[in-house]
């Protein structure tokens, strides 16, 4: 066992403990509450049935005036069943229990004559029996009014689904908070301390750690810093002493000077001391530093996804003769365009400002973007604010990506990327679901304000989780534009990889998820929570599947087959998407789409260092990832526009059909090409990848 594994075990134990406790607590409170609801609401439900039955009886008596007129009775029954949603069965039986007239859904077990008169529950229905004075002889007839026994249960089950979605979000947010606090209070300081001791072990006393807040580790770090300060001060003192001796010119001082000089040079040969006696603060950085911040920003952005098309449609377009469908697509594409451009050109900013400052700036722009979108009343305003939000999103994603890539070595490429991909997917997964729930209870503009508030919390997280770099690191050398990435575009493999792998997948993703699904589901009568829940299933698979598959693809060097299979799966399920109107089947289809896209994305990212060799070698992994993001961004931007153009001409169902065909064709071309031309040329296999900066 190592210290690192002890810390990992401790963190895992804490997270498991948290999950058990939260699940237990939620379970106990929900079960207690539902049992209370069932007991308390059942009489209310039955009282409603009594009122409805009573009123129907009066209506029948007054309308028919004693005569049993089957046509009128049937008409009244039909009207009642339409108005009273709780009532599902109505019948008139004679004194002997023989059925005279009935309407609605007959309960199983009815028709056994008198037995029914003494029963309140028949099959799956609650039955009320009332005496009617009808018929030619004014004999007592019976009116049977039935309501579904499980209607109240269904009502409660709907609530359970809502609670489950909210609680899943709560659970994940709590886990992220504990991970974050554990990282900043235990994991990072300890890793920093051991990194520093490793440096001292190699004779380097030039670094020290930033003082931490009051935790169990702060006295430890304080003592370590004291030792370093003492050594450095002592050395400075010795240098001063040697300087003083230089000024004395006695016989003994000459000998002492020699000995002291020998000692000092021995020290300087073996050790490195801080200049002027003041050691530099060492930044304890880990790929996970940006995890919480990235999660918060993606969560805030995803909050608006389930209802954004409807929100855009509610704003006057102000563009001459622009159809609503096209106007909806424009802000989505503009958002993606500005984010892709920022991803492409944020490298100089990253070098100049550093990740902390850039993230804070990006987050503040994002807050402004959300607030502006919330208060916008014109089409131009919406475009401008979404463009600004896209810039912020691009800056944040590119910064976090570069931060993680710089701290990830070739050996743990897939592992390091998990620190980036997990919060990205989980934030989207939970945000889209939570956004649907919020949109049901709040106006759209207020949901944007909630997003702004979450982004603001993200700014605070930036201040806490990312250490301020020392002064000398602030002024980095000016960034020079590097155009070596252009040579990747002369590589046919790279072009095929992007054109038939990354771009179509991203195009499908934005066209289907950001544009078509919210509109299609909304048109089929689904509410925002249901739309959010359906989208959540997609992100559920990508969140957990992408890191896992990226590792497997890395381990077994398997890239082409999963991409081909993913293309086939996503194309096939999209072909069937138009056939389903039921919520559950639609959810399953969207889930399969998520599986398909995961099968494509994970191996593509894993294969990236090999396929984009020139950029990776000349500019490093961060630039390689940016190039990939920009290329797939072309698909992302085109997605909503293509979907809008096709849906205006052919309708939603046909648009999905054409996109499915495009996905299948891309999969076949990709599979066919890389079946004959290997993904990685033989020469490249021999040629090792460039050394990335080692993770500390």
């Amino acid at each position, binding site marked *: 066992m190592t210290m690192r594994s002890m810390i990992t075990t401790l963190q895992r134990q804490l997270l498991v403990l948290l999950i058990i*406790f939260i699940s237990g607590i939620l379970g106990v409170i929900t079960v207690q509450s539902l049992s209370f609801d069932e007991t308390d609401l059942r009489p209310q439900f039955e009282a409603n049935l009594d009122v409805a039955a009573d009123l129907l009886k009066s209506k029948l008596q007054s309308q028919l005036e004693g005569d049993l007129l089957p046509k009128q009775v049937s008409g009244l029954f039909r009207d009642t069943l339409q108005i009273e949603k709780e009532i599902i069965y109505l019948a008139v039986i004679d004194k002997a229990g023989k059925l005279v007239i009935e309407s609605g859904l007959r309960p199983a077990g009815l028709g056994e004559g008198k037995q029914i008169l003494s029963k309140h529950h028949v099959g799956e229905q609650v039955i009320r029996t009332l005496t009617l004075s009808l018929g030619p002889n004014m004999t007592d007839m019976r009116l049977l009014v039935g309501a579904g026994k499980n209607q109240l249960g269904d009502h409660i089950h709907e609530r359970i689904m*809502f*609670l489950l979605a909210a*609680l899943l979000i*709560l659970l994940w947010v709590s886990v992220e908070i504990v991970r974050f606090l554990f990282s900043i209070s235990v994991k990072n300081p300890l890793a920093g301390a051991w990194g520093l001791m490793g440096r001292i072990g190699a004779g380097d006393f030039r670094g020290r750690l930033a003082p931490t807040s009051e935790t169990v*580790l702060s006295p430890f770090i304080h003592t370590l810093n004291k030792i370093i300060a003492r050594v450095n001060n002592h050395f400075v003192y010795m240098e001063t002493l040697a300087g003083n*001796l230089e000024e004395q010119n006695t016989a003994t001082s000459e000998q002492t000077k020699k000995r002291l000089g020998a000692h000092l040079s021995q020290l300087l040969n073996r050790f490195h001391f801080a200049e002027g006696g003041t050691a530099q603060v060492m930044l304890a950085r880990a790929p996970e530093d940006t995890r919480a911040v990235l999660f918060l920003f993606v969560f805030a952005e995803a909050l608006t996804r389930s209802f954004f098309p409807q929100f855009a449609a509610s704003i006057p377009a102000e563009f001459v003769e622009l159809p609503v469908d096209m106007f909806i697509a424009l802000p989505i594409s503009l958002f993606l365009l500005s984010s892709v451009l920022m991803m492409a050109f944020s490298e100089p900013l990253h070098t100049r400002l550093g990740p902390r400052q850039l993230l804070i700036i990006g987050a503040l722009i994002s807050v402004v973007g959300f607030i502006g979108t919330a208060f916008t009343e014109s089409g131009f305003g919406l475009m401008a604010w979404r463009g600004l939000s896209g810039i912020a999103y691009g800056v944040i994603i590119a910064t976090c990506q570069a931060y993680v890539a710089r701290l990830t070595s070739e050996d743990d490429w897939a592992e390091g990327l998990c620190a980036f991909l997990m919060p990205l997917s989980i934030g989207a997964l939970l945000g889209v679901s939570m956004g649907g729930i919020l949109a049901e209870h709040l106006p759209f503009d207020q949901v944007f304000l909630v997003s702004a508030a979450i982004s603001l919390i993200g700014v605070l997280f930036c201040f806490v989780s990312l250490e301020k770099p020392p002064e000398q690191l602030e002024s980095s050398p000016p960034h020079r534009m590097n155009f070596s990435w252009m040579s990747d575009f002369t590589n046919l493999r790279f072009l095929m990889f992007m054109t038939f792998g990354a771009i179509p997948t991203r195009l499908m993703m934005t066209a289907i998820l950001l544009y078509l699904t919210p509109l299609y589901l909304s048109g089929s009568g689904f509410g925002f929570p249901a739309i959010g829940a359906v989208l959540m299933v997609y992100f559920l698979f990508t969140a957990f599947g992408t890191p896992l598959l990226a590792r497997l693809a890395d381990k077994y060097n398997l890239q082409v087959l999963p991409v081909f299979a993913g293309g086939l799966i996503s194309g096939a399920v999209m072909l069937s998407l138009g056939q389903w109107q039921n919520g559950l089947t639609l959810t399953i289809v969207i889930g399969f789409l998520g599986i398909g896209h995961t099968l494509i994305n994970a191996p593509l990212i894993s294969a990236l260092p090999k396929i984009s060799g020139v950029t990776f070698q000349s500019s490093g992994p961060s630039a390689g990832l940016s190039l990939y993001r920009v290329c797939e961004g072309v698909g992302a931007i085109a997605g909503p526009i293509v979907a809008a153009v096709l849906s205006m001409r052919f309708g939603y169902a046909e648009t999905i059909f054409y996109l499915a065909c495009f996905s299948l064709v891309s999969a076949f071309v990709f599979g066919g090409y890389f079946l004959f031309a290997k993904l990685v040329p033989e020469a490249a296999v021999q040629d090792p990848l460039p050394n990335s900066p080692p993770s500390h």
Partner: protein
Amino acid sequence: MAITFTLLLGMVIAISSFLNYHAYRTTLYALGEARVQTLASDLQWSLRQLSTTPDSAHDKITEVKSRYPRILSIEQLLSATTKTEVSNDIMIMTVPQTHASGEIVGALKIRYAMSDEKNRLSTKLDSLIKTALIVFAIASCLVAIAIFQFYRPFIKFVLRSRESLQLVEAETPPSFDDQNIRWQEEVDYLAFQTQAQTVFAVLHEAEDYGLSEESE
């Protein structure tokens, strides 16, 4: 970490209690609204049948009010509107009133007492608070015990390392030696300790030379 856990559990308990309360309230009010809707539909139907005789309509309204004491008032309005709102424990439902010919002739405004629902909500809240407090108390105790158990080896390790570090600072003989080493990190620590000891020793030796000369 125990405080963080307790706060998080408190937050989860508060949010889940609120969500359950909100869900109950929504269902209860939906049932109440359904009942008023039933009454309103019946009234609409009855008044449509009786629309030629206004006195009969008035009698019908009086009859319904006497049969259902929770109906506080029924007003006939001239403007046709559809609206449902709950304020001050009263649900006000306005539904259009139609003539037998189907023409809209005004609206019916029904004020329905929701005091019973309010009492039920209060009972529900009491029940939830009681459960939440019991669950919170039990969970806090268990969390404290569990975190203490999980953190114990780590705290022991940190204290041991700190003691050793203080010995290095005091320049006393090292407490970590080859015999004590269990983890890879301790190898690094031993290297650090050795280097620190060495640098101190060399610095002191140099200092002795320097100071002796200076005193002469």
